[in-house]
């Protein structure tokens, strides 16, 4: 395969479009799950909340407005082809420029502060983005991007379980994390779970899991069954839409796994609100 040049301008334009699109247009998987849940929801208040969320998401798409004011911190998973040569600048700066333009020209909220503890001064352009890059064979760049709101991000957790906890221990930790989050992460939620790897790999997998469409299952039947069992368990908790009571606390549980160490079984739970935004592009 021949090396291929990709300009910074192409990358910036693609990233800009991804962030504007994901903030205006909710995925069909989410909208469809919200509508199905609305039919099954037993709580009158829960039904009314789901109606408002569905109406909101349709309105946002129609008027091209952000569906939530928290347009998130920009997170990107990049599969970077090893035959790609970026021209006209650096890949990372091209991505951040795309984020900058999306948040400025798309009327998205700038929610990033430069220093986490002391200054907390807004960077005013929502940069820097969080970029997870994997180099893969090929001459293309594939980007999956999403704006991650922090009402739900704050409810997320990582725990270093050990092998003897087994599948039951994994499920217990996930359910405990969701229960502790209660009404705060804007239910109905999408739960991203990362199991295996190392401390940071599990967290990264959990985020990646929230970017997977919720109408897909883990290809390993055992984890697909666990996803379904967890979804049922979460919806028995009673928090319901907006946490005001009901049977729709979650609309999806996605699990991603990775090989891990003989001594470990890290589990990360990344909670996402019903505005589970993500979009993909290939350059």
């Amino acid at each position, binding site marked *: 395969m021949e090396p291929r040049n990709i300009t910074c301008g192409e990358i910036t334009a693609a990233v800009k479009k991804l962030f504007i699109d994901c903030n205006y247009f909710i995925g069909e998987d989410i909208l469809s799950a919200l509508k199905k849940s609305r039919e099954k929801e*037993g*709580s009158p*208040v*829960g039904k*009314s*909340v789901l109606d*408002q*969320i569905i*109406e*909101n998401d349709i*309105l*946002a798409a129609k*008027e091209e*407005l*952000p*569906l*939530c*004011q*928290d*347009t998130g911190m920009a997170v990107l998973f990049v599969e970077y082809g090893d035959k790609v040569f970026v021209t006209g600048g650096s890949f990372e700066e091209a991505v951040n420029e795309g984020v900058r333009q999306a948040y400025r020209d798309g*009327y*998205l*909220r*700038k*929610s990033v502060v430069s220093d986490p503890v002391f200054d*907390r001064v*807004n960077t*005013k352009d929502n940069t820097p983005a969080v970029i997870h890059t994997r180099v893969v064979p090929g001459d293309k760049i594939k980007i999956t991007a999403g704006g991650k709101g922090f*009402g739900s991000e*704050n409810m997320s957790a990582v725990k270093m379980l050990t092998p003897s906890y087994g599948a039951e221990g994994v499920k217990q930790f996930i359910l405990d994390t969701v229960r502790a989050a*209660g*009404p*705060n992460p*804007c239910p109905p939620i999408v739960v991203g779970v990362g199991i295996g790897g190392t401390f940071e790999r599990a967290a990264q997998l959990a985020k990646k899991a929230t970017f997977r469409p919720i109408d897909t299952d883990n290809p390993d039947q055992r984890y697909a069954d666990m996803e379904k069992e967890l979804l049922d*368990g979460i919806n*028995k*908790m*009673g*928090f*319901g839409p*907006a*946490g*005001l*009571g*009901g*049977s729709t606390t979650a609309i999806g549980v996605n699990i991603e796994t990775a090989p891990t160490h003989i001594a470990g079984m890290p589990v990360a739970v990344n909670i996402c*609100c*019903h*505005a589970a935004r993500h979009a993909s592009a290939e350059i």
Partner: protein
Amino acid sequence: MTKRINLPITDEDIKDLNAGDSVLLTGTIITGRDAAHKRLFELIEKGEELPVDIRGELIYYVGPAPAKPGYAVGPAGPTSSYRMDKYAPALLDLGLKGMIGKGARSQAVIDSIVKNNCVYFAAIGGAAALIAKSIKKEELLCYEDLGTEAVRRYTVEDFPCIVAVDSRGNNVYETEPKKYAKS
């Protein structure tokens, strides 16, 4: 049944509200979230005057997205209230009559709501574009440097919310999920 309230809210209005009531608010409210609360709280601790008169007001925990041309405000849904729990009792003691946000509150905040005859409303998290339809005007009050976190005055018409904690301390986040819990 939906109750309509014209703002400013009165002590009688508050006494008439019960946890779970659907409410439409019309009038003006003020906005503020994490960074603004931190500044207001520090001024209160130092015994200094606040740059905004909070007496009789409702505060909406919101950091809006920018308004597109032709819109009065950008999408403006509630943010999680628990992050303001540390600061809320001091503001209620000074005469703030209520808060609009989302999610559960600490017992200290609920106790302060009861003590001061106040109310906590929940708006629907993530329904920001829809909620913004009920906000007709915005005006900057203070802390412009905080950007989205600045304190603003919103003029609202039929702003939709639900009484989450009433003046007797009844709390929907405590009572409602129990009715639907199956485990």
